[in-house]
């Protein structure tokens, strides 16, 4: 199908983009890579009256390592993240997740900011940012605020972004050299959205296990961390995790029932724990 008519504006600067957002944020949408937005528009599931195209705005696509943090501009393409030596070095968990995102043709346009703003429950980037405890810099014409990734996602396709706000930067603390990490995803075909995905990272005694595609937003496991896993057998860890899952609101849909997702989560968590814990 073809999208409904709209106006497209192409700001040349961030200031101009924010000013347009302030004026049109309610009835308009930002278009970054378009890999999530345009399908929705082509299906007429969304009919924004105005699109604010960020592809001409300079200064939003940088990758830098500063002050112990990896700093990524909101418009950094997923393909650029894959090519980046800084990402491989300072965020190996992100590097492991990236090849699972979409396909070669979507990663050339798709952006990190766009994926986070879109907030699909099954998307990999929201999960990894939650796992890495990323900070998002949100900008509007009125100023900027920093929101932790772990507080950014409210529900499926819903974030704390206000209509006049956009993500300009994402930063993550650099992973120390002795970090061990694991990313596991189950999808029906390569590149599909995950049915369930697990991102785990261990540095010394610190352990984070995060899950996507299970609840409507990615979350960090409360039961499995550096303290609680010490000295536990595989069976004990499985039981601890299963117990946590009974208290969770697991999604069920035509791709996978809630029971199946919960089961898959356990399988993938076990794989990841094996990878990051075993000597």
């Amino acid at each position, binding site marked *: 199908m073809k999208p409904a008519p709209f106006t497209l504006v192409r700001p040349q600067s961030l200031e101009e983009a924010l000013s347009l957002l302030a004026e049109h944020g309610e009835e308009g949408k930002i278009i970054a890579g378009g890999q999530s937005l345009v399908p929705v528009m082509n*299906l007429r599931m969304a009919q924004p009256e105005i699109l604010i195209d960020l592809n001409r705005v300079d200064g939003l696509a940088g990758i830098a390592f500063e002050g112990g943090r990896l700093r990524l501009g909101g418009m950094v393409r997923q393909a650029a993240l894959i090519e980046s030596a800084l990402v491989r070095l300072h965020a190996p968990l992100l590097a492991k997740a990236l090849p699972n995102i979409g396909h070669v043709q979507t990663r*050339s346009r798709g952006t990190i900011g766009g994926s986070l703003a879109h907030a699909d429950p099954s998307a990999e980037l929201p999960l990894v940012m939650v796992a890495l405890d990323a900070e998002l810099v949100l900008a509007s014409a009125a100023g900027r605020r920093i929101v932790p990734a772990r507080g950014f996602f409210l529900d499926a396709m819903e974030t704390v972004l206000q209509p006049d706000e956009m993500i300009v930067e994402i930063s993550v603390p650099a992973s120390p050299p002795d970090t061990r990490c694991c990313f596991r995803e189950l999808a029906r075909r390569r590149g599909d959205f995950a049915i369930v995905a697990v991102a785990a990272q261990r540095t010394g005694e610190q352990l984070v296990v995060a899950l996507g595609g299970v609840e409507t937003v990615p979350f960090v496991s409360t039961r499995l961390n550096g303290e609680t896993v010490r000295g536990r057998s595989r069976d004990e860890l499985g039981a601890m995790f299963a117990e946590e899952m009974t208290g969770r609101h697991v999604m069920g849909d035509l791709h996978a029932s809630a029971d199946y997702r919960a089961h898959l989560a356990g399988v993938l968590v076990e794989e990841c724990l094996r990878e990051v814990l075993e000597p």
Partner: protein
Amino acid sequence: MRFSCRINGVAYEGDVEPRLLLADFIRHEARLTGTNVGCEMGVCGACTVMADGEPVRSCLMFAVQADGMDIRTVESLAENGSLSPMQESFHKHHALQCGFCSPGFLMTLESLARKGALPKDEEDAREVLSGNICRCTGYQNIVDAVLAVSR
């Protein structure tokens, strides 16, 4: 809305609705019908073209967004009536039946070839081609055709 771009080295100008998809500009305005529209929602890959050297889904770009870009479509592969090496390999290995998906596969592969990144084994080939769907061949002949060129 006005825009201009180059397609296969030829300059094009348009004054079109913003909602006109790049795929539709290529097919209906530029009359280059090699690029096919399969799903219009970015999952099948039949519309794959190269934009500034990168493989993109032309059904997920608006034509006006291609302003200033260098677009390459399947029509650019053959030279003076001679098939490109990859096209020749597709022919030889029977990697197409109806041919609807083939331009998309070829342009994905062309973008990789230009970067020296053609897959060298079956696993990699299936990985990089995961964004192109074929309903006819069952993919094996496509993989064979690709590896025959890359190895």
